[in-house]
């Protein structure tokens, strides 16, 4: 085999890599590897000059392959592939050696880390020599969108797309739209009417010509791939209705959250003490104008307990983000409805971070809400008061701002239940093939720069199903997802990754072992030819079929046996 001309670039990443790994030594080592014609070490390969260096070398030194030893390929593979494209080289003739996340950041000994970096570069050089130019496919982008979940996120996203003249299918499990916001009367921190927001959204969604609302429905199946999904929708109300199939180009998952079950925490006595209620139960009382104890009296002492099920090692370690402001809202509402009452607010840290929220917190103090702080992981205990007390219950808590163990009088206790993923997240995740984190929230493609996309192309997430968030943040996310989709529809075509598996029909024995293996039903069996065939647009390149093929007829593009063998040799030499 004639050795292709390879360029190797070792990134210092400021000092991130250079602090541990001797980058110059790695470059010198690389220079001696077979086929390597250029090997350089540079401060920031990802920077414009860094990329230009590659482009220039490709042009001037007629490089045919490029290796960049830098951060994780998850970070910058795309960046450098684009640089190759700029220089007119096929972007797949490129390989990254991860010498930051998996070398300089995890090892202290410079000599050993340098040796490891050299091995990784060696493997990359070996591998890249065997890369083949691959072409990306372009597929049509269906302009319709499927929105799963009819809460505020779902409706906002649907309206955004529909207003832009695109068709939207909005699927909601319940018999009405609204989700959790339908259970709320006023919003924090300005006490605006949640009902007006809901009425506005529902009216517009229902009246919109471009939105097809399907309540009491669910997505049974999602087939296809980005730009060309086929969703099978089923009715929950009437099984006899049968399933409907719609074509969509993108899917936005807006399945929201459910509240934490307060009965799981025994020391709050929820379910046993009749006047211990959850935030949503208070919401109902507020709407009815009857904030009363079970005995039918307006409470004199009201206590609000924060972080119920949130920020705790036993239940959920995360913060549910909205409860603090909702609690303050309740403090105001209770004071408004019962001016003679005393409200105690038992919190851990007051998360009043949003616009207008700190002011809201101050206003709550001004109406004499008594704020009491307890420690994360501690347990306020609610018990019945003694007969002579002027209150119905007592909350015992180790109050941190006074350093005392105190008893808070209460006639009504409101538990600020946190948010948790819906029970069917796993089903949904499976349905649209996205993943969930350890808490059960859907994982975004990048926490900072891509908070609405997922690792599965064409599937977006918005709202509280990604992580707890308030209404403005939910609305922003829902629109962000819509923006992504609108941009794609505007372009009309989609480019699909060139990495997929293909069958060498000459070697295929037609044994059909692979057929059942593919989770994406991407492998067809051609009865006439008696050969299997892979639909490349559906293939997600996992390679399960490749490893299983007894006759070695399936080739995983960009992950061929030959390439991996070369890599193995490289790391071990």
């Amino acid at each position, binding site marked *: 085999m004639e050795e292709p001309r390879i360029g190797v670039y070792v990134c210092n990443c400021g000092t991130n890599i250079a602090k541990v790994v001797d980058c110059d030594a790695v470059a010198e080592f690389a220079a001696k590897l077979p086929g390597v014609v250029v090997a350089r070490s540079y401060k920031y390969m990802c920077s414009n000059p860094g990329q230009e260096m590659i482009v220039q070398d490709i042009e001037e030194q007629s490089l045919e392959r490029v290796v960049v030893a830098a951060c994780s390929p998850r970070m910058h593979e795309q960046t450098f592939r684009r640089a190759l494209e700029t220089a007119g080289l096929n972007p797949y003739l490129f390989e990254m050696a991860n010498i930051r996340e*998996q070398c300089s950041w995890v*090892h202290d000994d410079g000599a050993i880390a340098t040796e490891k970096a050299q091995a*990784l570069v060696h493997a990359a050089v070996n591998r890249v020599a065997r890369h083949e130019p691959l072409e990306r496919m372009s597929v049509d982008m269906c302009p319709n969108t499927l929105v799963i979940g009819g809460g505020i996120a779902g409706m906002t996203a649907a309206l955004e797309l529909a207003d832009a003249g695109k068709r939207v299918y909005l699927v909601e499990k319940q018999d009405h739209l609204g989700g959790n916001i339908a259970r709320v009367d006023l919003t924090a921190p300005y006490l605006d009417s949640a009902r007006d927001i809901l009425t506005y959204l529902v009216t517009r969604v229902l009246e919109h010509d471009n939105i097809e609302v399907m309540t009491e429905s669910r997505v049974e199946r999602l087939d296809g791939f980005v730009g060309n999904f086929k969703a099978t929708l089923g009715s929950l109300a009437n099984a006899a209705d049968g399933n409907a199939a719609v074509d969509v180009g993108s899917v936005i998952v807006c399945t929201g959250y459910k509240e934490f079950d307060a009965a799981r925490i025994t020391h709050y006595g929820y379910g046993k003490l009749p006047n211990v209620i959850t935030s949503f139960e208070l919401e109902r009382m507020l709407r009815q104008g009857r904030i009363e104890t079970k005995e039918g009296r307006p409470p004199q002492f009201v206590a609000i307990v924060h972080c119920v099920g949130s920020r705790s090692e036993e239940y959920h370690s995360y913060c549910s983000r909205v409860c603090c402001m909702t609690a303050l809202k309740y403090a105001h509402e209770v004071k408004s409805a019962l001016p003679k009452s005393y409200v105690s607010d038992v919190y851990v840290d007051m998360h009043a971070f949003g616009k207008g929220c700190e002011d809201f917190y101050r206003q709550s103090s001004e109406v004499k809400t008594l704020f009491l702080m307890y420690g994360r992981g501690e347990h306020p205990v609610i018990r019945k008061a003694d007969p002579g007390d002027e209150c119905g219950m007592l909350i015992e808590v180790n109050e941190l701002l006074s350093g005392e163990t105190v008893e808070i009088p209460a006639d009504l206790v409101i538990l600020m239940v946190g948010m948790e993923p819906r029970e069917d997240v796993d089903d949904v995740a499976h349905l649209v093939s996205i993943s969930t984190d350890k808490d059960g929230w859907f994982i975004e493609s990048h926490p900072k720069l891509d908070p609405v996309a997922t690792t599965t192309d064409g599937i977006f997430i918005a709202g509280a199903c990604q992580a707890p968030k308030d209404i403005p943040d939910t609305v922003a996310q829902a629109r962000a997802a819509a923006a992504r989709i609108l941009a794609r529809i505007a372009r009309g075509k989609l480019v699909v990754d060139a990495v997929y598996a293909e069958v060498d029909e000459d070697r295929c024995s037609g044994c059909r072992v692979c057929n059942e293996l593919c989770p994406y039903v991407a492998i067809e069996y051609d009865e006439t030819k008696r050969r299997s065939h892979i639909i490349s647009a559906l293939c997600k*390149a996992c390679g*399960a079929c490749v490893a299983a093929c007894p006759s070695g007829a399936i080739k995983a593009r960009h*992950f061929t*046996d030959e390439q991996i063998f070369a890599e193995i040799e490289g790391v071990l030499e």
Partner: protein
Amino acid sequence: MTFEPKIVGFLCNWCSYTGADLAGTSRIKYRPNVRVIRVMCSARIDPTFVIKALAEGADGVLICGCHPGDCHYTEGNYKTMRRYPLLKRLLADYGIDDERVRLEWVSASEGKRFADIVDDMTERLCELGPSLVKSALATDAVER
């Protein structure tokens, strides 16, 4: 010089490789003996990869995939799980120590776990001593 085993790690792109990256971003230190090769899914790992690695001089092979149920490709890791005992039996037939090849589940949020696994495996391989597969193959070749 003390024996420093060489481990070839095959990591799935979605969970384990991200987990190994997380160990990096969290600056969790671990033994430098592992050299990682990225594959899209643990199901892509052909038994020949493992044998190739051992033959090329690896003292151990580490295979990491998503936790059961978390596979990005729905069920690729179950396929790995089923293939693995077969591979082990094969290796046992060749007289290769059982502990030289390991299958572990590492999620994208388990940087610490990845580091611990690497440390533990390195430790075990140090106790076992160098793998003789490569030299045995060399002798074998000479004898023929």
